[in-house]
């Protein structure tokens, strides 16, 4: 099957029910999406499918065929960071960083839908687990992107 | 003249420095005195082979050998494996004889943390010889060393 990952079409031959996460990580060497729980609880494996966040540990690879898969590695355009990535640096959001690829992608999707999200919008959208507890800074960084009014 | 050496032996830091809680570290003199009782001890002719790092002290490979022809006239009579930190300093005492042909012994030690190990040999001449080895037991946990 053919998979569009980070604007590149990749060829792979795997079982259709293999989770997208393991097709990306172990077949295509795309390591940005992380394994956290395997049951769509934590969101460390989040990728964007046509701009929508999906927990790739529980999403069959065959269902992703024909859609645009974007992982954290594919977010920056060439060397230019996405505004959400820049805000994450400006506000020193990550601690261990393991969940942050997923957090950033969810924030990108949120800001695309709601360029000026309220706290309630952020609460509703940002459901990924961060064990280090960076939530306060995630909220601040999202508001900062919204305030700058950069098209996310 | 050997005063500098002698005093250096007593000044070892307390065990707490490494966050381990297994008692104090003995100085070389404290380890050797009960055995040699005032006799001359020379650091020569004894060799130790062990690991540099251990994840824990439960089973640490240790080999010691002494330069000796192991003849009836000239052989090693005793060998002590000594721990600077264990609750029991003498980990093993060996009685050897010329029949061994080679003054060599290997075993696995149980150690209460990182420390210096000493192998002390007594020769048939009555002379004592020793060697030291550093062993680091890595920190396995968030022991609050404060």
């Amino acid at each position, binding site marked *: 099957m053919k998979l569009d990952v980070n604007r590149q079409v990749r060829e792979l031959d795997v079982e259709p029910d293999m989770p997208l996460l393991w097709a990306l990580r172990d077949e295509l060497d795309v390591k940005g999406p992380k394994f956290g729980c395997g049951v769509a609880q934590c969101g460390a494996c989040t990728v964007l499918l046509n701009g929508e966040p999906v927990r790739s540990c529980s999403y069959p690879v065959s269902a992703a065929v024909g859609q645009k898969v974007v992982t954290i590695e594919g977010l920056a355009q060439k060397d230019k960071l996405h505004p959400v990535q820049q805000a994450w640096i400006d506000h020193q959001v990550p601690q261990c960083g393991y969940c942050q690829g997923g957090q950033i992608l969810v924030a990108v999707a949120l800001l695309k839908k709601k360029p000026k999200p309220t706290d309630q919008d952020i609460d509703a959208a940002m459901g990924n687990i961060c064990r280090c507890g960076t939530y306060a800074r995630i909220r601040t960084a999202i508001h900062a992107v919204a305030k700058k009014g950069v098209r996310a | 003249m050997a005063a500098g050496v002698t005093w250096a032996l007593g000044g070892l830091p307390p065990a707490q420095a490494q966050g381990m809680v297994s008692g104090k570290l003995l100085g070389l003199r404290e380890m050797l005195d009960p055995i040699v009782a005032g006799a001359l001890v020379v650091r020569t002719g004894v060799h130790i082979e062990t690991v540099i790092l251990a994840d824990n002290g439960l089973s640490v490979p240790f080999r010691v050998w002494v330069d000796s022809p192991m003849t009836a006239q000239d052989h090693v009579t005793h060998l002590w494996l000594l721990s600077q930190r264990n609750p*029991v300093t*003498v980990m093993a005492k060996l*009685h050897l004889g010329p*029949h061994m042909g080679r003054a*060599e012994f290997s*075993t696995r030690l149980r150690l209460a943390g990182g420390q210096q190990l000493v192998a002390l040999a007594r020769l048939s001449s009555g002379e004592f010889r020793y060697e030291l080895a550093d062993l680091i037991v890595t920190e396995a946990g968030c022991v609050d060393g404060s």
Partner: protein
Amino acid sequence: MTQARFDMPTQVRAGEVFKLRLLVQHPMETGYLLDLNNRRIARNVINDLRCTYLGQEVLRIEPSSGLSANPYVEFFLRATQSGEIAVDWVDDRGERGQVRRTLTVV
């Protein structure tokens, strides 16, 4: 009786120095730990291990809690004549163990 693995050549040349290896299955209890019922596990170590060759004691080891559980010892002997090699040990509880081998010297 404790279990043990003992390894030595069965046949050697006269005058040859050969290696003997012994692994004894024994907890070598230090006396510092508690069991699950909070009772102190009494010290129980092999406190004496000796090797005799042709009826003569050639090596005696007095271990303490400083040797690891399932103690391993490795040492050498010089072959003089054919005969029995025996290793005997006893722990703090008085339990004994032994191995016997016949060495052929050619």
